[in-house]
């Protein structure tokens, strides 16, 4: 009885916290189906905003900037970060620590300072193109996350495989591509995903570092003061549903695999017993 009461309280608490986290999201999604233009004023169910969304040139352009910067910056950061991690792995400890500590800067620095400092350097070197600024800025804050995903995998993988490949006649580059990179692939993939999503969601660094170009976050910020257009609600509902579906698929798959591995282990244990 006591246990049941306790479980009830635990469940209620987690439920309330989830309600707190999801209430605003529910509001956004519900009002994307609203017939009226103002949020908070429900006048009936409608899909007009979903239809209008794809005809809105401004939003489509901002979406294009966001997606292309996320993809490009993630790819470039993944390549550069992976090679950097490999290079740093074989450095002497002193040099490596210096580089690692400087790499930490964009991670521990408040976004605001990163954004402002990039704005200053772009102005200083006379880079005017807003899109290039955005891309360079996103690559800069993405690389450390790739390095920190790849480096632990490098430490786990043995150096002997690489040496063996060299002994068997591979050039260092061949050995790297055929032996080392496949070995650390999980780290590279998670670094890429992390980079892509960080770029997708960034507002502060983008807002300060670029000029004249709007990604979705900047567009939303400039709209928020006047009131957000329900088309944005429709767009973010679509993006949110896509991301959640993807996450659930990945997670359910990994839970299933875990369960399968668990039963496998139990079978083996039974047999040996």
């Amino acid at each position: 009885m006591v246990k049941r009461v306790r479980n009830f309280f635990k469940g209620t608490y987690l439920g309330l916290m989830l309600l707190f986290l999801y209430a605003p999201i529910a509001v956004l999604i519900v009002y994307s189906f609203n017939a009226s233009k103002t949020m908070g004023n429900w006048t009936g169910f409608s899909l007009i905003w979903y239809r209008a969304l794809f005809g809105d040139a401004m939003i489509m352009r901002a979406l294009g900037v966001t997606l292309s910067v996320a993809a490009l910056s993630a790819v470039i950061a993944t390549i550069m970060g992976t090679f950097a991690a490999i290079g740093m792995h074989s450095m002497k400890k002193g040099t490596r620590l210096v580089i690692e500590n400087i790499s930490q800067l964009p991670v521990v620095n408040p976004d605001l300072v990163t954004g402002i400092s990039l704005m200053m350097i772009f102005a200083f070197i006379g880079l005017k193109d807003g899109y290039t600024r955005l891309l360079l800025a996103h690559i800069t804050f993405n690389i450390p996350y790739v390095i920190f995903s790849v480096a632990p995998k490098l430490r786990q993988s043995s150096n002997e495989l690489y040496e063996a490949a060299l002994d068997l006649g591979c050039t260092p580059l061949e050995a790297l591509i055929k032996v080392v990179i496949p070995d650390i692939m999980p780290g590279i993939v998670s670094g890429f995903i992390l980079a892509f999503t960080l770029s997708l969601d960034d507002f502060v660094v983008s807002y300060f570092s670029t000029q004249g170009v709007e990604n979705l976050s900047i567009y939303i910020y400039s709209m928020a003061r006047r009131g957000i257009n329900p088309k944005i609600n429709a767009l973010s509902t679509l993006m949110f549903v896509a991301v959640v579906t993807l996450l659930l698929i990945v997670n359910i798959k990994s839970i299933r695999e875990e369960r399968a591995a668990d039963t496998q282990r139990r079978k083996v244990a039974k047999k040996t017993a």
Partner: protein
Amino acid sequence: MKRTVFAAPYAVWMAIFIFAPMLLIGYYAFTDGGDFTLANMRAGLDAMYMQVLIRSIWLAFRATLLCLLLGYPIAYLLSRMKHGTATLLSVFFVVPMWMNFLLRTYAWQVLLDSGGILNSLLISLNMPGQQLLYTEAAVLLGMVYNFLPFMILPVYTVLTKMDASHIEAARDLGANGMQTFFRVVLPLSMPGVISGVTMVFIPAITTFAISRLLGGGMFMLYGDLMENQFLLLNDWGSGSALSFILLILVIISMAVMRRAERQAGEEGAKLW
């Protein structure tokens, strides 16, 4: 060919886009037209700016405390669940971060507005409507809302890695639930708490846009102040001085956290 060469492109990149910009902040903070000056720093330490800084720190402190008080129980309850269920539920606590944070903050405007959902609820319960939006409490709520997952995750990670036999040992030795929690679980989870506090406190000091959307610009925070200096006034000198003060603050709080982490580690070692 040495493998260290592979790090060369990144080293160059880092020098240009991470290291040089930091030097630029230092340069603009301490010069005026190329000459050394302390005027910018003096302006940055002006009483009015200091007031904004103190308000930001005080608000960030309360937001961090609330995140800890709300987030720790969540992480603890999750860590005591079956592994599969816990993984899935922890995903649910992270998923909100996948919707643009500006939009989620904007949605709170709709919830808190005088004609909004929460007020309609109050009125339908025969209670007087409240001014919720554009208050300090609303800004605090926005911060807690945005940073809560950053507190839950590190605490949850530490708690799941904790050896269950420690808890069993405490119970076997006669500690009750409360004693086990305060004398074993909490001290052992300190590293997670500290990294959670760092991940909430520093972004909270520099939070930007939340105060404008939920505070209606009535509560200027340090982030808003810096935006003003750089983007409105185009005053790089005093803006850089503000960034410099902020950086020093970040370094101090990182140092404090590191120290606390080491102490927590030592205490954990003493415990066992």
